């Protein structure tokens, strides 16, 4: 979106907020500081200041009309902290007017908003509608211009901007007997294929996807939900003799069973075919369709929620990547809360065993992906004061080429906060760690969070 469009949209929406009978303004101001001294490079000091700001204005002339705005801005007070060398930046995450009808959960949104009702998670400058229909049906649709992001270089950017000219999607779902929901959705992102460019490109930033989702919750003790996404795009013809890649982008299904009031067991299966799943990425060099790789993962989690403020979770996941082989992740977390959640304490440990990884890269030994992780944290609230400590430690198998000779990395974060008033909290963090980039790394952060106004919801 062009800068003058941002200004016009913000001016319109912010002036509209003045009509609201209930307006909430909330924000967070953050100042960070860290220094870098890398051998062979100049020393650098980074002091980025970041401002988040949100507005929720409800009852704009009508009880049903509301306005929602959220964005951030950043300025570097010393060296540039951004990788592109810029010393300032900002972004409007969303800014839309919403009308909620009293009937049928119907609503209309217009402006910049996020939709996740179809196969993807999309940021759109446009219009979205949804409503419940008779007979248990639900309908939603959106359309507009996709929010464009940056890609790797100016040539790719031109192609990307040209192809992603329009985005629209829809979902039709049916609820049966209040225990089952089945949805079918369609998403089209861009109408101009790579072959339509002045200089035809091999990279297609457009997508056409068909999704199906399901939920089955016959009782409060069983919940099954998931989705399958198909890639409908017409991709360039393959070379003679090449294997046709799967059109299934994703299967992702989770079932949860509750055993009594304290124990829940959940299992998940996911399968993703990269050729179809990575369609439309703006980083084709990283999310490579041409690898025609596949990921399959399955696992489970057991959660024990006791009535005495103790929670225990154990999890296991098996991961299989076609070109890299198998890996297993297992671990657990313990969590306590004392004095009506005034004191929280958590301990966790996880292991990743990638002994069966077939190939990492030509220079790396087979076991280099295996590692272990431990985490301990606590947070305390006493009167107006809050404090927290968070430590995370990772140990990697010997021979890991990514660690510059280190076997382990760690980071500790300590935070102190003061609730100055109902509407304002100030806090400060200091973190210390050691990693392959910096043997000793110390960072400081100051934060002020505030919220003013009368609207019931906002910021949380």
């Amino acid at each position, binding site marked *: 979106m062009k800068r003058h469009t941002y200004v016009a949209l913000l001016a319109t929406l912010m002036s509209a907020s003045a009509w609201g009978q209930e307006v909430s303004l909330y924000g967070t101001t953050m100042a960070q500081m860290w220094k870098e001294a890398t051998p062979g490079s100049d020393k650098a000091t980074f002091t980025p200041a970041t401002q988040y700001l949100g507005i929720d204005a409800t009852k704009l002339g009508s009880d049903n009309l509301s306005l929602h705005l959220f964005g951030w801005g950043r300025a570097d007070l010393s060296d540039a902290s951004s990788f592109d060398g810029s010393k300032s930046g900002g972004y409007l995450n969303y800014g839309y007017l919403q009308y909620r009808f009293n009937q*049928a959960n119907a609503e209309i949104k217009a402006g910049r908003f996020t939709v996740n009702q179809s196969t993807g998670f999309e940021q759109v400058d446009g219009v979205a509608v949804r409503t419940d229909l008779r007979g248990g049906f639900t309908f939603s649709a959106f359309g507009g211009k996709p929010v464009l992001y940056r890609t790797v270089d100016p040539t790719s950017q031109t192609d990307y901007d040209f192809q992603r000219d329009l985005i629209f999607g829809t979902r039709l779902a049916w609820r049966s007997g209040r225990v089952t929901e089945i949805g079918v959705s369609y998403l089209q992102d861009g109408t101009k294929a790579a072959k339509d460019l002045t200089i035809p490109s091999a990279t297609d930033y457009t997508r056409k996807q068909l999704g199906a989702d399901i939920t089955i919750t016959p009782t409060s003790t069983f919940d099954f939900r998931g989705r399958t996404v198909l890639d409908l795009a017409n991709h360039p013809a393959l070379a003679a003799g090449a294997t046709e890649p799967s059109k299934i982008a994703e299967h992702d299904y989770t079932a949860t069973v509750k055993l009594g009031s304290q124990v829940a067991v959940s299992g998940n299966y996911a399968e993703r075919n990269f050729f179809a799943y990575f369609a439309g990425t703006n980083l084709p060099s990283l999310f490579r369709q041409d690898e025609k790789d596949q990921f399959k993962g399955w696992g489970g989690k057991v959660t024990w929620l006791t009535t005495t403020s103790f929670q225990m979770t154990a999890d296991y996941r098996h991961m299989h990547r076609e070109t890299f082989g198998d890996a297993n992740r297992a671990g657990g977390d313990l969590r306590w809360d004392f004095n009506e959640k005034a004191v929280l304490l958590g301990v966790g440990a996880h292991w990743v065993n990638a002994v069966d990884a077939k190939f990492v890269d030509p220079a790396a030994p087979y076991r280099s992906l295996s590692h272990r992780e431990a985490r301990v944290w606590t947070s305390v609230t006493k009167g107006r004061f809050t404090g927290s400590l968070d430590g995370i430690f990772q140990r990697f198998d010997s021979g890991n080429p990514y660690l510059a000779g280190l076997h382990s990395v760690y980071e500790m974060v300590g935070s102190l906060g003061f609730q100055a008033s109902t509407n304002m909290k100030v806090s400060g963090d200091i973190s210390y760690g050691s990693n392959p980039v910096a043997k000793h790394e110390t960072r400081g952060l100051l934060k002020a969070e505030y919220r003013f106004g009368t609207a019931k919801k906002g910021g949380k």
Partner: protein
Amino acid sequence: MARKTILQVLGLVLGLGMLMACGLVSPEASFAATHPEGLGAGKPVCSECHTNDVSKGAMKPYASFDHTPAFVQDHRFQANQDVNTCGSCHAQSFCVDCHGGKVPMKPAIKLSESPERMAPHRGDFLTLHKIEGKLDPSSCYTCHGRANNDKCRACHR
């Protein structure tokens, strides 16, 4: 003349379509825009107060929305199908902490004083991502595949 006729027919079809669509709309009252009661600290267990009996009017068992560790990790399904339910307690700015499209810092830094919250990339994830990305790049793609990836682009060109 022909153009005028086409427009008239199109208008008639659209008008009839709108009338039919209005007749299809559910007569049920909308879900509460905001949760009527204040909630205590920490993650709510909806089924502690709400009935789970679907035969007594709940559209789905509220237990489906209990904020257990599994729910926090897999909330995409509920957000996909029941965004109105999420919206009765959460403003969209809550989602933006992680799902912002373009954010100035990783969620673990923004939420550093809340270690009890699930925040992706705690600790030195710059090192860990080289391993996690090889085990399952599709887990990275969910957030980074089509968003603004200034940091990714610095190396992955």
